[in-house]
C-alpha cells in the first residue's frame, strides 16, 4: 500500500514537471510579443529588443526554464506583467475566492447527485429512473455559458430576485454566490448522477442483494445496509475527477458573472500574454487536477478491499 502511494506520488511530481516544460515550450512560440504587450503597439523594434534583453527574455530557453523552475519550487512565481505585482499576490486571494465557489458547488452537487443516482439505480427502467436519467442528460447538454444566460434571464431579468454580477465589490455576499453556484451545479451534477446510477444498478443485480431481499429483509435495510456501501465506491472516484471539470466550468462562470476568481485570472493572463501568471495559474490548475486524481486512486484502493494490495 505504501509503495503504491509513493509511486502514485512520484508520477504526480513527474507529471507536474513535464507539464511545466510543455507550458514553457508552448508559450515560447511568441515570447517576443510580451514586449509589445508591455511597451504598447507603437513601440519601436529597438525598444522592444532592449526591453527583452533587460528582462532576460533573450537568454537561451533552457536557462530561463531552469531559473523559473528553481524560483517556482521555492514559491517565487515571478512578476505579473499585467498587474505589475508578484504573481503570488494576485493568485492566492483569487484562488481563495474560487475555492469558496467550488466548495459551495460540491456541497450541493455531491448529496444531490448521490441521492438522485441511488434513486434511479434502485429500480432500473422504472419511471423514476427514466425521468432522472433523461433529466441529467438534458442538464449536462446545456453548456455553462448557456445556462448562465438562461438562468440570468429568468432570475435577474424576469423575476428580479438575484444580482446579475458577482464581483463581490462590497464584500462577500451570499446573494451573489447563488447564481454562479446554480450554473455549476446544473452542469456538473448530471454526470455524477449517471455514474452513481450505473454503479447502483450494477450492485442491485448482484447475488447478495437478491439473497438479502429473498431472506425477507425490509427493502429499506437492503438498500441502506447492503447496497449503498458497495454502490458508493465508484462515485467517490467520479466526484474526485469531477473537480477537474469544475475547474473548466469555473472559468466560464467567473467570466460571465465577473467573479474575482482564479479562472477569470487565468483567462485574463492568457489574453494578455502574462507568461509568469499563466504558468503559475496553469500549474495550480494542473496541481489540483493531478492531486485529486491521486486522491481518487489511493482512496479507491482504500475503499475497495478487493484491490487493496493489487
Amino acid at each position, binding site marked *: 500500500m505504501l509503495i503504491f502511494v509513493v509511486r502514485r506520488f512520484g508520477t504526480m511530481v513527474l507529471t507536474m514537471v513535464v507539464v511545466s516544460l510543455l507550458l514553457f515550450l508552448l508559450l515560447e512560440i511568441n515570447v517576443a510579443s510580451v514586449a509589445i504587450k508591455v511597451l504598447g503597439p507603437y513601440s519601436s523594434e529597438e525598444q522592444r529588443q532592449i526591453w527583452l534583453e533587460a528582462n532576460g527574455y533573450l537568454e537561451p530557453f533552457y536557462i530561463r526554464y531552469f531559473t523559473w523552475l528553481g524560483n517556482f519550487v521555492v514559491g517565487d512565481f515571478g512578476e505579473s506583467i499585467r498587474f505589475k505585482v508578484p504573481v503570488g499576490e494576485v493568485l492566492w486571494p483569487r484562488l481563495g475566492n474560487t475555492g469558496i465557489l467550488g466548495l459551495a458547488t460540491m456541497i450541493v452537487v455531491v448529496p444531490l447527485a448521490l441521492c438522485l443516482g441511488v434513486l434511479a439505480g434502485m429500480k432500473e427502467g422504472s419511471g423514476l429512473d427514466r425521468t432522472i436519467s433523461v433529466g441529467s442528460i438534458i442538464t449536462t447538454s446545456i453548456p455553462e455559458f*448557456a445556462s448562465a444566460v438562461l438562468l440570468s*434571464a429568468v432570475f435577474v*431579468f424576469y423575476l428580479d430576485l438575484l444580482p446579475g454580477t458577482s464581483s463581490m465589490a462590497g464584500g462577500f455576499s451570499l446573494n451573489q454566490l447563488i447564481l454562479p453556484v446554480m450554473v455549476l451545479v446544473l452542469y456538473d451534477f448530471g454526470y455524477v448522477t449517471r455514474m452513481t446510477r450505473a454503479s447502483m444498478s450494477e450492485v442491485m443485480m448482484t447475488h447478495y442483494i437478491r439473497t438479502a431481499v429473498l431472506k425477507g429483509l425490509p427493502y429499506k435495510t437492503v438498500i441502506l445496509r447492503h447496497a449503498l456501501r458497495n454502490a458508493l465506491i465508484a462515485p467517490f472516484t467520479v466526484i474526485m475527477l469531477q473537480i477537474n471539470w469544475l475547474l473548466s466550468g469555473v472559468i466560464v462562470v467567473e467570466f460571465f458573472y465577473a467573479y474575482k476568481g482564479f479562472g477569470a485570472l*487565468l483567462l485574463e493572463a492568457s*489574453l494578455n500574454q502574462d507568461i509568469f501568471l499563466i504558468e503559475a495559474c496553469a500549474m495550480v490548475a*494542473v496541481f489540483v487536477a493531478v492531486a485529486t486524481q491521486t486522491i481518487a486512486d489511493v482512496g479507491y484502493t482504500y475503499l475497495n478491499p478487493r484491490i487493496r494490495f493489487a
Partner: protein
Amino acid sequence: MTDITAGIPRRESSIIRTLKGMALIRESAVGMIGLALILFWGVLAILADLIAPFDPNATLYPLAFPGTTVEGMGTFWLGTDHLGRDVLSRIIHGSRTVLIFAPLATFCAYLVGIPMGLAAGYRRGMTDAILSFISNVILSFPVLVLYIIIIATIGASATNIIIAVTFASAPGIFRIVRGLVLDLRNREYVFAAETRGETPWRIMLVEILPNARGPLIVDACLRVGYVIITIGVLGFLGLGLPPPDPDWGGMINETRQMAMSFPHMTVFPCIAISSLVLGFNLLADGLREVSLRD
C-alpha cells in the same frame, strides 16, 4: 481448384453491418429524439441560404424584439441584435459553422487518437508506456485551461481551433482505444491473423479496429457534443472564430452585455446550442442502450 468458400453464405461488409446496427436506433425513443434534433439542425445548415429570411451579416433594424414587423423588410421572428442583424438568420447560418467544425475537429482527434491507441494496446511495452504517459500529462490539464492557453498563444482561427481540439481530445480517444485493444488482442481471430503472418498494422486496422467500432461510435457522438460546447465556450470567451460570420458562442459573447435589457439576443443562440448538444448526447445514449441490448 475448387472454391472452398462455396456454400458458405458471404458475410456482409462491416460497413453495412455497422449501418444495420445503427439503424436499430429506431427502437430507442430517446435516440430517435436525438437523431431528430441533429437532423433538424443538419437540414437547416444545408438549406441555410434558402431558409434564412435575411442575410446573416446585413445590418437591418437595430434592437427589434422578437416578432417585430418592419414595413418593407418583413418580420424578425427572433428579433435583431445590437447591430440590427436578424437573430433567426444568424442562428440558421451559425448551425453551418458548428456542424462543419465540430465533426471535423472530432474526426481529426480520432485520426490521431486511434493509431496511438492501436499501437499502445497492440504492441504494449515501451510504446504503451510512453504514449500513456504523454496522454496522462495532457489529460491532467483541466480541458478549458488547455484550450485557452493554446488558442491565446497561437491565435484564434478555424485551423487553430481544430488543432487545439485534436491536441486536447486525442489522449481521451487514445485511452478508450487502448482499453478496447487490450481486450481484443487476445481473441482467436487476432491469433489466426498473426499465424497467417499478417503485418502488425494490418492486424490492428483490419482485424482489431472494426471490432472496436461499437463503443467508439458512442464515444464519437458524445465527443462531438463536447466539441460543440468547446467551440461555443471559446466563442463565448472571445477566443472563437473571428467575426462577423455567425457563430453561436460568439453571438452570445457579443450580446451578453445587453442580455439584461434584450434577453432574446442571447437566449435564442443558447437554446440552439443546447438543443444540438442534447441531440448528440441523446443519440449516444440511445446507441449505447441499443448496443447493450444484445
